[in-house]
């Protein structure tokens, strides 16, 4: 529901911007901070930074890095739930939590629909490739206390496999697009949408991100 409201509000705002577009100033590049909502098996937040260097009137090389707070897959949740059942069998008042934060970095090409400086509004698409480091952060609790590290011991006798514990770094593909708009001198807002896929060994992780970047052109 909140996503829908946000999308409508963004569309209305951008529609107004489009009517107000006019010529801008050519730039050599940009740098911006990004805040996003992330969408996948779970919804979460993502934060990061992005930099781009112009290599042509419509092409830029970009690089971004960031962290998505939770990209937990259904397989991870299911496995965690199963082992939580084993904990519950021997301990009352037990619980568990599942998080899978991902830290990523990728670089690629950003293509603007208009030549730099030709229009004030700068719609673009991009594609990049990089890597994501994903941590499977599953915690088991009994009476509110974290017993994850004690699971191999009495009374649990549980060994967690790499299906619910540890971390891994895998390649990541990113595609996306957006609209950049200068709001004051060199200050730019970047309405952006990104789709990323982490090529995890067990189950590929899809990460959708929609958010806003605030940066400067130079």
């Amino acid at each position, binding site marked *: 529901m*909140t*996503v829908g409201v*946000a*999308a*409508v*509000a*963004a569309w*209305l*705002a*951008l529609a*107004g*911007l489009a009517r*107000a577009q006019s010529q801008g100033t050519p730039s050599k590049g940009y740098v911006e901070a990004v*805040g*996003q*909502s*992330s*969408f996948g*098996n*779970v*919804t*979460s*937040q*993502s934060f990061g930074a992005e930099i781009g260097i112009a290599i042509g009137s419509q092409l830029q090389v970009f690089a971004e890095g960031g962290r998505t*707070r*939770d990209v*937990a897959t*259904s*397989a*991870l*949740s*299911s*496995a*965690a*739930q*199963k*082992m939580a059942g084993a904990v519950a*069998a021997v301990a009352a008042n037990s619980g568990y939590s*599942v*998080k899978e934060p991902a830290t990523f970095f990728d670089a690629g090409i950003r293509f603007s629909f208009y030549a730099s400086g030709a229009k004030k509004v700068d719609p673009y698409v991009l594609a990049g490739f990089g890597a994501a480091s994903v941590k499977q952060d599953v915690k088991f609790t009994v009476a509110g206390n974290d017993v994850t590290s004690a699971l*191999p011991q009495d*009374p*649990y*006798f*549980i*060994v*967690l*496999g*790499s*299906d619910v514990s540890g971390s891994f770094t895998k390649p990541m593909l990113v595609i996306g697009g957006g609209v950049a*708009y200068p*709001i004051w001198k060199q200050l730019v*807002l970047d*309405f952006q949408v990104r789709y990323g896929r982490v090529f995890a*060994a*067990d*189950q590929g992780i899809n990460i959708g991100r*929609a*958010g*806003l970047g605030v940066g400067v052109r130079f």
Partner: protein
Amino acid sequence: MCRARLYLAVAAIMAAGACSGSSPSQPSSSSAPAAADATASIAAPRPAAPANNALVRNADQPVTLVAANAVTTATSAVTYMFEVASDAAFANKVQTWDNVAEGGGQTTVKLDPLAAARDYWWHARATGGGTTGVFGPPSRFTIGPAITLGTPAPIAPLSGAQTGTRPALRVSNVTRTGPAGAITYRFEIATSSSFTPLVVLGNNTEGVNETGFVPTTDLQPDTAYFWRAFAQDLANGVTSPASAAQSFTTHQPSPAEIMAAQLGVPLWPGQVPPGSTGHATLGDNWQLQILHHLPTNTFFQSPTIEMVRFFDLFDRGFQPDPAIDWLNTHGYSTIAQWYPPPEKAVLGLQFVYIAARNKITVNGIWDLVLKTE
């Protein structure tokens, strides 16, 4: 105005992310397959049987260990390892069973026989999906002491014996080793030497030196039977070998045999008269009693064995005079005198008459009458 819309869009998009907490979705299935490249998680199998601290009778070996299956995310085959040790720390393992295939819900392994009268601990672990789990909680059980029972020796009836329809089966008590509990004896009677089917099955607690059993219902008369006995320590689940089977033939005792048995005297210690019984009927006063012969002021037990033998001869179809003759000529001397009808029909003995009721001597009824002279 334009800038205001821009700020609205920024706020809306950020709100969407901020309002969406990090929350895992519920899995669509309870199964949680571990991926090919990921190792599985395993919660160790837990002992199900024998119950912790159970006492297992030595006679009940071999012991079967039963473990509730491990909880695992493995999708490949899961195997189990069972360890049995003589100490709680599993420093002295006595048996190890590995690569035991997982069963449905529970996984079992039948142990080799263990030494008796000792405590044992066991636990199990599972391996699957690239992960070897930890051993589950240990469980303790005790094998009871080793007890052996000797073979009961038949005392009576031995093979070839003729018995009543409720013979007393007797065996000598068995020898035993180990801390045996209370011993009982199981007696079996059958019409075949294979003891299938059983006709009578009875139990009795051990007596002094020997133990007996008397059937509570009559066996078929004039039938050949076999019998044997076992000694049992029910508390420890130990049963002896069967005694040597013995055979006997039942015989329906005649009235005279019954009375002789009551007197505790053999009816015919020597020669046995010919003929079969069924030709006479006991009349009055044949019950065991003390009578008083008034003329001589003599008290005596009635009937005497002599009276009983006369009745047995009548029962075999003898007439009174031939009966007197048969006794006198076969080592059972008598002073009996027959007073025939039509005046009388009585056999005179020292203190009593054996009187033919209604003076009928063939298939007649014979009463005992106290003499008054």
